C-alpha cells in the first residue's frame, strides 16, 4: 500500500471530483445567472447611469468602469456565499463530510480541495463580466489574461472565509449577519460602481484594506494599464488567502473532529 502523507494531490483531486460530479447536475442554472447578471448590471448601471449622469471615470467609459469592477462582485458572490452555505449544508444536513472523513482524507485536504474547487469556479464566473464588457466596447489586451489568476487568488481567500464562517455558526440564519455586516460593505466600498476617492477619508482608508477593492484595481489595471503597485496588491491577496486557508482548516478541525 502507498504511504499516506499530508496534502496528497490525489486525495485533493478526489474530493474535487465529488464537487465536479455534483456541479454537473446544476451547472446550467449557475452559468445562466453568471452570464446574465453582469449584463443586467451593465445595462442598468453602465448604460443607464453612463448615458444620463456619468459619462466616464478617470478617462474610462462608465460602462467599462462598471464592467471591469463587476469581476470582483462576481468573484465574492461565487466564492464566499457558496462556501458558507455549501459547507454548512454538507456538514450539518447532508453529512457529506462524515462520509469523506471516514475515508483516508484529513480535514486539511478536505478544506484545501473545497477551496480550490470554489476558487476555480469563481475565477471562471468572475471572468464572465469581463467577457460581457468586451461586447460593450472594452479593448482586448494581453494583460487581461491575468484576470482569471487574480480572481482565483481572491476567490481562495473568500472561499476560506466562507468555510470559516460555516464552521463558526450554529444556525444557517446566522449567515445573515455575515452578509449584512461583512460581504455587503466590502462589496459597496470596492470601487465597483464609483471611485473610492469620492468616499469620506475614513472609508477610503478602509477600502485600502478591502481585498475586493484590491481585486477591482488589479482587474482595471490589467484592462487599462499595469502599475508597479499591482505586485504589492497581488502579494497582499496571496497572503490573505494563505492566512485564511490555515484559519479555515483550524475552524473545520474543531467542528468536524469531536
Amino acid at each position: 500500500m502507498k504511504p499516506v502523507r499530508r496534502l496528497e494531490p490525489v486525495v485533493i483531486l478526489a474530493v474535487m471530483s465529488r464537487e465536479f460530479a455534483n456541479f454537473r447536475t446544476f451547472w446550467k442554472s449557475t452559468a445562466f445567472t453568471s452570464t446574465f447578471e453582469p449584463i443586467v448590471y451593465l445595462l442598468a448601471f453602465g448604460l443607464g447611469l453612463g448615458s444620463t449622469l456619468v459619462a466616464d471615470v478617470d478617462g474610462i467609459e462608465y460602462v467599462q468602469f462598471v464592467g471591469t469592477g463587476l469581476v470582483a462582485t462576481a468573484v465574492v458572490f461565487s466564492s464566499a456565499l457558496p462556501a458558507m452555505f455549501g459547507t454548512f449544508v454538507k456538514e450539518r444536513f447532508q453529512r457529506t463530510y462524515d462520509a469523506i472523513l471516514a475515508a483516508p482524507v484529513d480535514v486539511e485536504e478536505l478544506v484545501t480541495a473545497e477551496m480550490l474547487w470554489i476558487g476555480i469556479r469563481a475565477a471562471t464566473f468572475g471572468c464572465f463580466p469581463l467577457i460581457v464588457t468586451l461586447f460593450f466596447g472594452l479593448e482586448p489586451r494581453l494583460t487581461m489574461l491575468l484576470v482569471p489568476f487574480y480572481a482565483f487568488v481572491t476567490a481562495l481567500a473568500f472561499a476560506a472565509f466562507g468555510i470559516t464562517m460555516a464552521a463558526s455558526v450554529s444556525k444557517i440564519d446566522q449567515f445573515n449577519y455575515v452578509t449584512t455586516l461583512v460581504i455587503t460593505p466590502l462589496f459597496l466600498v470596492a470601487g465597483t460602481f464609483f471611485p473610492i476617492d469620492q468616499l469620506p477619508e475614513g472609508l477610503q482608508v478602509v477600502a485600502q484594506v478591502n481585498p475586493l477593492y484590491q481585486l477591482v484595481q488589479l482587474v482595471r489595471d490589467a484592462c487599462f494599464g499595469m502599475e508597479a503597485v499591482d505586485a504589492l496588491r497581488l502579494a497582499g491577496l496571496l497572503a490573505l488567502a494563505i492566512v485564511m486557508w490555515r484559519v479555515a482548516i483550524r475552524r473545520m478541525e474543531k467542528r468536524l473532529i469531536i
Partner: protein
Amino acid sequence: MPAIELHGLTKHFGPIAAVDGLDLVVDEGVCLGLLGPNGAGKSTTMKMLTGQAIPDGGEIRVLGHELPGDSKAARARMGVVPQLDNLDIDVTVEENLAVFARLYRVEDVAAAVERTLEIARLTDRRKDAVDKLSGGMRRRLLLARGLVHDPELLLLDEPTVGLDPQIRTELWRLIDGLRSQGTTILMSTHYIEEAERLADEVAVVAAGKVIARATPAELIAEHAGVTTAEVYGPPDRLARVRREVEEAGLRVRPAGPAIAIVAADTADPGLIPDDAVFRAASLEDVFVMLTGEEAE
C-alpha cells in the same frame, strides 16, 4: 493479530461519559455485534475508530495502526457504512461509487465500481440519480460504497436502523455474505435480531463499557438459562407473580403485556403459574436483564 484493539477507552462530552473505560478486541475474520441501547456509546466508539472523535483516554489500535495519530493509514484499509444516508442524491449511482473509489486511492476505479455494483445488485440502475432509488437500494448502495476499496475491516454503524423488515432482511443477506467470505466486521446495533442473526460474537454495551461478551448461545446460557416463562394477566396478578418469583431468587423482566421469568427451568415446582407460556431463552432476555432496557 487482532483487527481492532480498544483498551480503557474513554470519551466525555462535558459531564457525560459517552464511553467509559471500554475494552474490546476483535479478531480478524470475526463479525462482532456491538449491542446496546441508544446512548450506550456505540456510535461514539465508531467515530473514534475512524478518527472523527478523539478519545480522552485509553488506546486504540486498528489493523496494527495506533489511533488517532495513524488514523489515515487505518482508514485506508477499512470501510465504513454510516447510520445516516449521506449519499450524493443528485449524482448517479456509479458516480457515487467512483468518487469514493478515488478517495480510497483505488487504482482501477472502473473495476471497483463494477464489482460493487454487482454486490449491491444495482448494475442496471448505475446511470440513475440516487434520488430515483428506493430506500432499500439506497441502503445497498451505501453498503457498496463502504466496500469499494475491498477493505479488510468493515464498520457498520446501525446498518438497518429505521428500515422496514423487508429491506432489513435484504441487507442482512448482503452482510451475511460478507461475513461468510471472511471480512472482519464490527457492527453496532440495538436490534437483538440483527445481532443474533449476523454476529459470531456479541458484546453488550451499556453506559459506555462492555458488560458482557460471548457468542449469542453462550450469552444466553450464562445470563438467561435454558427456558423463559411468560406470564400474562391483569397488572395486579403480574405484580403478585413477580413478587413471589423474585422472592424465590429468580429474575423477572417486563415483556410487553407479560412478564418474562428467566431461567424458569430452575424454578421449584408450583412456583410458576400453570398457564405460563414456556419458550427457549433468547438474546433479548440477556439484553434486557443486563441493560435494563426494553429490546427492539
